[in-house]
Each structure stands twice: as structure tokens, then as C-alpha cells.
């Protein structure tokens, strides 16, 4: 077992694959935050993980098969008899049973199977449930901007950052927010608004991506954001602006604190904020940390 920076390679792989116990993971986060080399190794492992997923997202279709063999002649009679008997039994049973409203609705439901299972955890719950699951240590009055939120859709899962198409732009800026200090967040929002206005004024080809993780997630949570209206306005005004929340942070809040995060409309998610930052830096984006 090879050790680097106090961690074996197996340990780093387990960290990337989310196989560590919470205390081990916490220790790893601390070390990774301090050690640049360790950070680089973790990023490389995450990149490999992403590449494998990318490589097999669309696989070639299997070759056409000959039609399935039909029932043999001597089995047809038996099959038909069993079928008639089964239909008779089922019909008899059904006719004697009252049909519930639920079953009526189910009968009218479309046949298509929607793959909602994978995203079930990420679909936002009703507001009352989210509020009940989100105990905060200190009660503070909700900012006025939050009042805008009730009209927003609450049942749509946030889009992935991968669905955002960023063309070949000249100025690519990544802003990283991992802080929940109100003064800094306000300043960051001012900076973002100013930057977007500047690029529009000079008609520059640009894209600004704001990656939010850790404590910074408060900025884009429906129940905590003090800048909901401002973010909505910016996203409405500028197509070349993206707010991306870290899915790892969202999962951690759910697992460790039981908080089901509801993101502001238009905010997308990225699997890992840290990996996204590294990816963008490798792609030549300018990195700004708040």
C-alpha cells in the first residue's frame, strides 16, 4: 500500500468514491485543503471518474436479434387454456371488487415510465417540509427578497452544469463562493453585477460561472438566501451567467443535518464544486475567490 502525504492511494480512492466514515472524510477534507499536492491527486481521481462516465454515457446499440421464437404448436393449446382461465379468474375477481379512485387515476396515467428514482432525493419538497427539516441555530428575520420566492416552481429538479452550453468565449471567469458572511456575499453580488454590466457595456464575449459550495450554499438556498431577487434578476438579464451549486454540499447537508436543500430557480448543480473549479482552471478560466 503506497502512502503519500500520510494517506494511502486506496484511502484517496475511497474518499473520492464517498466510501469513508464521516470522521475520516472530515480529516481528509482538512488535509486536502492544506496540501496542494493531495488536492491535485484528488482532482485527478475525480477527473478519471468523470471520464469513465463520459466514455460509456452512450454505448453502441446491440446488433439486431432474430425475432423471439414463437410458442411451439403443442404448447399453444395449453397456453391458450391457461390464458382463458387466468382472464376468467381475474375478471371475476375484479368485478366483485370496488374500484378505488386511486386505481381509476392509475388506469388513466400515461404508460411512459419516467425515471424519477435517481433524482427523487434532489426534488425539492414542499416549503413547509423544507422549513420543518431546516432548523437553524439562530432565528433571524427573513430578508425582504425571500418574499419573491413563493411563486417559484418547487417540483423541478435543478439542471446539471453539464447541460449548460458555453461556447467559445474570450473571457471566462470563475467566481468561487464558500463563505456565508453577509457582508462578503453582498460585496460578491455587487462584484458579479458590476462584472456582468462591464462585459455587456464593452460588448465582450464572456461567460461568468459562480461556483458555490460549503457555507456559501446559503446564497442560493430558497430558505436562506438574502439575494434571491438579485440572483433572479441577474440570471434573467444575462444569458452568460451561471450559478452552480455543489451537489456534494447538498448531499452532506441532507445526510448530516437532515436539511433537504431547495435551490433558487435557474441555479444549476455540479457534482463536485472542487472538481468543477479544477476543471475550469485547467480550461484556462480566470479564478476569483470570495
Amino acid at each position, binding site marked *: 500500500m503506497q502512502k503519500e502525504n500520510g494517506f494511502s*492511494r486506496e484511502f484517496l*480512492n475511497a474518499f473520492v468514491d464517498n466510501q469513508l466514515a464521516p470522521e475520516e472524510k472530515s480529516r481528509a477534507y482538512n488535509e486536502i485543503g492544506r496540501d496542494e499536492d493531495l488536492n491535485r491527486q484528488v482532482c485527478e481521481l475525480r477527473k478519471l471518474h468523470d471520464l469513465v462516465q463520459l*466514455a460509456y454515457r452512450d*454505448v453502441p446499440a446491440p446488433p439486431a436479434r432474430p425475432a423471439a421464437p414463437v410458442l411451439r404448436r403443442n404448447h399453444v393449446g395449453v397456453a391458450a387454456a391457461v390464458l382463458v382461465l387466468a382472464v376468467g379468474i*381475474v375478471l371475476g375477481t375484479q368485478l366483485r371488487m370496488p374500484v378505488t379512485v386511486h386505481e381509476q387515476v392509475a388506469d388513466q396515467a400515461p404508460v411512459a415510465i419516467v425515471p424519477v428514482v435517481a433524482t427523487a432525493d434532489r426534488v425539492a419538497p414542499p416549503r413547509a417540509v423544507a422549513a420543518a427539516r431546516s432548523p437553524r441555530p439562530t432565528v433571524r428575520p427573513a430578508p425582504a427578497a425571500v418574499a419573491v420566492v413563493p411563486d417559484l416552481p418547487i417540483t423541478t429538479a435543478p439542471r446539471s452544469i453539464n447541460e449548460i452550453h458555453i461556447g467559445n468565449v474570450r473571457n471566462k471567469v470563475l467566481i468561487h463562493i464558500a463563505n456565508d458572511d453577509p457582508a462578503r456575499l453582498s460585496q460578491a453580488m455587487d462584484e458579479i453585477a458590476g462584472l456582468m454590466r462591464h462585459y455587456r457595456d464593452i460588448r465582450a464575449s464572456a461567460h461568468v460561472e459562480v461556483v458555490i459550495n460549503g457555507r456559501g450554499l446559503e446564497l442560493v438556498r430558497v430558505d436562506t438566501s438574502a439575494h434571491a431577487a438579485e440572483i433572479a434578476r441577474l440570471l434573467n438579464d444575462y444569458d452568460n451567467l451561471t450559478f452552480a451549486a455543489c451537489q456534494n454540499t447538498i448531499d452532506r447537508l441532507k445526510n448530516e443535518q437532515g436539511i433537504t436543500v431547495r435551490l433558487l430557480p435557474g441555479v444549476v448543480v455540479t457534482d463536485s464544486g472542487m472538481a468543477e473549479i479544477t476543471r475550469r482552471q*485547467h480550461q484556462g478560466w480566470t479564478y*476569483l*475567490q470570495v
Partner: protein
Amino acid sequence: MDLLDFFTRSREAQRALQQARARLYRVAYAWCHNTALADDLVQETLSKALKHSAQLRDPKARDAWLFTILANCFRDHFRKTREMDDIDEIEISDETTPETESSRGEIVGMVRSAIARLPKGQRQVVTLVDLEGFSYVEVSQVLDVPIGTVMSRLCRARAAMKNILLPEFQQSMAASNPSTLRRIK
């Protein structure tokens, strides 16, 4: 009513198997990189799953159960086709991979080629973890190997892929503009 439940459960099980088909095929393809063989393996897996569906006590364990059958089918296929000294250590050469030389320049082609070059055991572990998101414990059950073996295979697989893939990507990265660091106070 029991009879109705029986038919409903049976239909649900068949639907679940049908939905798992695409995922089984994707992993089977990642293991063998051959569409016909992958399809045959999936067909055999589903056939066995239907035949032995009574063995599945916990529907939540259906995924791991299906992939265990797939892994057994895959192992049996190689057992039938030829004798081996140690199948885990056999490395598939570039020539036998389905990826053509022309697709090497593409990321997908490069990654598939790198995975095809991994020994079979490592290939299975890395695809089950990265594509299906199985935990190490589940992979250990699916492949019937100790969890330590899962971890070491995964570690070796990623190290090999890193050596193959990252230098090629770094070349293209070097061509792009260097990133700039700034801090807002």
C-alpha cells in the same frame, strides 16, 4: 386478491428487469467492448434472473443480484472459450479492442481504449464503481472477492488509466491559456 397480487408482482419484476437491461448492457459492453457479446451476456443474465427470480428475497438488492449474475455469465463465457492461467492478470492488447485508430483522438475513444487495456478484474471493479455507483461492499459481493481486493484493483486501475490518459490531456491543456489567480477581499 392474492392471485391479483401475484400477477402484479410478477409484472413489476418483469418491468424492473426490463429497466435494468440498458444498465446491464452498458456495463457488459464496458467489460468486453463487443456489442454482440454484451447483448448475449445481458440476454443470458435476464433469462437466469427470470428463472431464479424466487431467489431474490429483498427487491432492494435487485441491482446487486442482477450484476452478480452478469459477472457470473461473463466469467463462465471466458471459461468456456479458453483455458487461462490467471484471467485477472491478462491484459488485452490494443489490437483486440474495438476502438479504431481513427477514434483515438476522441476522448471517448481514448478512455474506452484505456479501460479495454486494463486486466479484466480491474476493468470490472472500475466500471461497477464509476458507472453504476456501487459501494465497495456491493462490488465485493457482486464479484465475490474480498473488499481489500476491490480497493487494490480499483487503485491499480485508476493509476494505470492516469498514466495512459492524463499525459494526453495535459498536452492539450498546455496549449490553452494558463489560468489566472485573483482574490476579492
